């Protein structure tokens, strides 16, 4: 019936925002903004032009950053 709709998964969402600027919040409350270059099944994330925010304040910039998936709380496109 609505088979295609049922096939949409969280992974489809993640694939749809590849290459976009994203906001990533970690369990610790630290936030990252950057270009989402890729992810894998563990939700490990590679970001480009990464900005690190602690308590909403910019703390660091990284050209590339690998974030280990277990630390991720959520990801959203911005």
């Amino acid at each position, binding site marked *: 019936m609505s088979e295609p709709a049922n096939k949409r998964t969280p992974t489809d969402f993640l694939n749809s925002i590849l290459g976009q600027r994203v906001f990533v919040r970690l369990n610790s409350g630290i936030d990252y903004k950057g270009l989402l270059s*890729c992810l894998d099944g563990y939700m490990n994330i590679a970001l480009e032009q990464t900005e690190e925010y602690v308590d909403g304040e910019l703390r660091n910039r*990284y050209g*590339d950053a*690998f*974030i280990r998936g277990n630390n991720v709380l959520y990801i959203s496109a911005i």
Partner: protein
Amino acid sequence: MADTAAALTVEEPLDLVRLSLDERIYVKLRGDRELRGRLHAYDQHLNMVLGEVEETITMVDVNDEVQTQSLRSVNRTVPMLFVRGDGVILVSPPSRAA
């Protein structure tokens, strides 16, 4: 040809780490610890062997009398270090800007 192209592109996040082998990297760990060192080896858990490591530990000192907090960081160097992957939050390779 395909091999050399694949060796240089980032298709999965761990490729970023692979491209940093033998380079100095920055590692952010749980417990307000940071490492800077040369990446000798890693695996899929992000267990890593780092050489010439500088570890920075950041602590918050709370002064109860005047209700203030101050950050204090301690540095130490380690010639060779095995890092267990589950403590890793972030890995940043050296800038690969052309």
